C-alpha cells in the first residue's frame, strides 16, 4: 500500500502519458498509450497501469496535475497546466542547466525558453500547419507504406540527405514521390524528412543557443531526428532520459510542489 502519490498526466494528441512520484520525487510508476479517439479510456489505462507499478490505488493520489491538449478530460485533476509549462518543468528537473527546450509532439512543436529560476521567458508554437510535427512524419511514413520506426531506421542509413523543400505535409509527400521517381535513395529521402523538421525547429529559436534540451514522443522514437537537430542547431542537444514522458513528469513535479495534502479538494477515487 502506498500513500501520498503525486500524479502527472499528459493527454497529448497522439499519446497519453502518466508519471507517479512519491513525496520525495522518486518515480514509482509510469505508462504511455496511444490517445486514440477516447481520451477517457486512454487516461484510465495509463493511470491504472502506472498505479499498478506504484502499488497504489486512486485513493492514494494526494494531488494530480494534468497537461496536454486533452488535459481537461482528466476529471479528477486538481490543476490543469499547459504542456509548455509541464515540459519546461520536466526538462529542467532532468537537467538543471537547460534554458532552451524543444518539444516535438504529435500535433505541434514548441520552443520554450526559461530563466535561471525556471520561469518561462519566451515560447513559440509551430503555425497551424502540421509540418515540423510528429503528424508530418507519420503521414509521410504511411504514404511510403512503413511505420515511423521503419522510417527512422531507414534514415539512419543515409549518407547524403535529400533536401525536402515543402512546408506542407501534402506537398512534401508529393516531393518524396518525385525524389523516388528520380532514383534518389530511400535512406537519403527519409533523412531529408528529418532534416526538414529540424530546419523548421531552427526557425523557432530566436537566439543562438549553446545547449538545447529536447523532449517529446518524436524525439524518443526517432534517433534520426536527434541527429538532424544536432546538425541544424549550433548548440549541443541534451536529450531528456525519457523524452516522451517529460510533460507528465513535469506535471507530477508540479503536483508535488503544490503542497497537495492540504490543498486538494478533489476525490481522486
Amino acid at each position: 500500500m502506498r500513500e501520498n502519490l503525486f500524479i502527472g498526466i499528459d493527454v497529448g494528441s497522439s499519446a497519453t502519458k502518466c508519471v507517479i512520484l512519491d513525496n520525495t520525487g522518486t518515480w514509482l510508476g509510469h505508462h504511455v498509450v496511444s490517445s486514440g479517439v477516447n481520451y477517457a479510456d486512454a487516461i484510465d489505462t495509463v493511470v491504472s497501469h502506472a498505479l499498478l507499478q506504484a502499488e497504489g490505488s486512486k485513493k492514494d493520489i494526494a494531488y494530480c496535475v494534468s497537461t496536454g491538449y486533452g488535459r481537461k478530460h482528466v476529471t479528477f485533476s486538481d490543476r490543469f497546466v499547459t504542456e509548455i509549462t509541464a515540459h519546461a518543468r520536466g526538462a529542467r528537473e532532468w537537467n538543471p542547466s537547460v534554458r532552451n527546450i524543444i518539444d516535438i509532439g504529435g500535433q505541434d512543436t514548441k520552443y520554450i525558453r526559461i530563466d535561471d529560476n525556471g520561469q518561462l521567458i519566451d515560447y513559440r508554437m509551430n503555425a497551424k500547419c502540421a509540418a515540423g510535427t510528429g503528424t508530418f512524419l507519420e503521414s509521410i511514413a504511411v504514404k511510403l507504406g512503413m511505420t515511423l520506426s521503419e522510417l527512422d531506421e531507414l534514415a539512419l542509413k543515409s549518407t547524403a540527405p535529400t533536401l525536402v523543400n515543402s512546408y506542407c505535409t501534402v506537398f512534401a509527400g508529393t516531393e518524396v514521390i518525385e525524389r523516388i521517381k528520380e532514383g534518389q535513395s530511400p535512406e537519403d529521402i527519409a533523412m531529408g524528412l528529418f532534416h526538414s523538421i529540424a530546419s523548421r525547429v531552427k526557425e523557432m529559436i530566436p537566439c543562438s543557443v549553446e545547449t538545447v534540451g529536447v523532449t517529446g514522443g518524436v524525439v524518443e522514437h526517432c534517433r534520426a531526428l536527434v541527429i538532424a537537430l544536432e546538425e541544424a542547431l549550433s548548440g549541443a542537444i541534451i536529450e531528456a532520459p525519457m523524452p516522451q514522458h517529460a510533460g507528465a513528469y513535469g506535471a507530477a513535479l508540479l503536483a508535488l510542489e503544490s503542497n497537495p495534502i492540504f490543498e486538494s479538494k478533489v476525490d481522486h477515487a
Partner: protein
Amino acid sequence: MTIAVKRVPIKARKRLQTLMHDYFLNLDAAATDSNRNVAWCTSVGPCEILTAFGYEVYFPENHGAMLGARKISHECIPAAVAIGYSAESCSYMTSDIGSALSGVSPLTEAFGISGPPKPDLLCYNTNQCREVQDWWNFFGRRHNAPVMGIGPPTHLDLVTEAHTDFVRNELSQLITRIESQTGTKMDWAKLEEAVDKSSKASSLWRKVLDTAQSHPSPITFFDGLIHMAPVILMRGSQHAIDYYTLLLAEMNERTNAKEAAVTNERFRIYWDGMPVWPKVREMSEKFFDLGLCVAASTYCNSWAFEEYTGGDPLAWMAKTSTKIFINRDETFKQKFLLDMCKQFDIDGMIFHNARTCPNNTNSRFGMAQRLRDESGLPVLVFDGDLSDVRFFSTAQTMTNIETFVEQLEGRCR
C-alpha cells in the same frame, strides 16, 4: 461549490441596437428610392465628403466583419476564390464578394433586409491597404457604378506638410470628379459640419477608450468591438455624438463604482491587430475566465482621430487619413505601442498575425520581439485570421493564451 462570475452588461448596448437597426433600414430605403443615393466607403473615409454630397454612406468592411462574427464567411469565401480572388488575400474582401455571389448576407437575419444597399458610387482610401481598391472595383463592375478614391503616401514615420498637402489635393480632386460625375456641386457647409461632427464623435470615442486606463477597467477590447460601430458607420452625424456621450457617461459611472469589465481583473493586456471575428465570443469568454482584461488595442483606437478646430475641413481629413496608425512605419508604430503600454499599465502584449491581413498585422518584421526587449513585457504572437477560420486553430490558440497567463503568473511570484 464554484459560483459563476457574471459580467455586468453595458446598458448603452440597447441604444446601439436601435441605432444600428435604424441605420441599415435607412440605407435599404435609400437604395430603393430614386431620389436618394448610396455611396460605399472605406471605414477610414473619406465619408465626410460623401455625406456633404448628400449620399447615404455604407461601409463594406462592416459587412465583412459581420460575415465573420456571424460565422458565415467560410461559406462565402469559396465563391470568391472560384472566380480568381486568392484565398490568401483579405478575407473581408473574399467573404464580402462571396456573399454577393451566393446571395447570403447577415443583414437579413439581423435587420430583415435582403443585403447591402446597391451603390451609386464607390469611394475608397488606400491608406489602410490596396485590397479595398480591388474589392470596390469588383462591386463597381457588378453594379455598373463609378469607383474612385485616394491613395495617401503610406508607411510614414514623420507626417510632413508635404504629405498632407498631397492628400488634401487628392481629396480636392476627388470632389471635382464626383461633381463632374454627378453634375452636383458639393455643399461645403455640409462638409464642415460633417467633419466637425466626425471629430466630436471620434474625440468622445477616444475618451471612452481612455476610461480603460482605470483599475479595474470598465471596458475591454471585446466590448469595444461592439461599441465602435457608430464611430465608423455614423461618423459625421449627431447620432454618433449622442451615442458616445451616453456611453462615456456610463463608463465614467462604472469607473467611479469600480465596476470591472472583467471581474477579478488579474492582468492587463494590449491587443495588436485585427480581432478574430468568428471567434470573438469564444475568446472574450476565455479572457474573462482567465482574468485577462484587454485594456487597449490598436484596432479600436484606429478611429480615434485628432480634434477638428475649424478652418479647413479638407486639411483635417488629409491629416487623419495620413496620420492613422495603419498608415505609419514600424518606427512610429513601435513608439506608439510602447506609449500605449505605459498609459494603460499593460502587463503583456498579444499580437494577432492575421494571415490574410498583412497591413493590419504588426508581428511580421520583428516588432513584437523588439517591443518585448524594450519594454520587458511578455509578448505572445498567435496565428489566425480576421474572418477565415481555416487559418485558426482553437486548441492551439487557447493553449498559447493559457501559457501566456502562466508566464504572467510566473512574473508575479
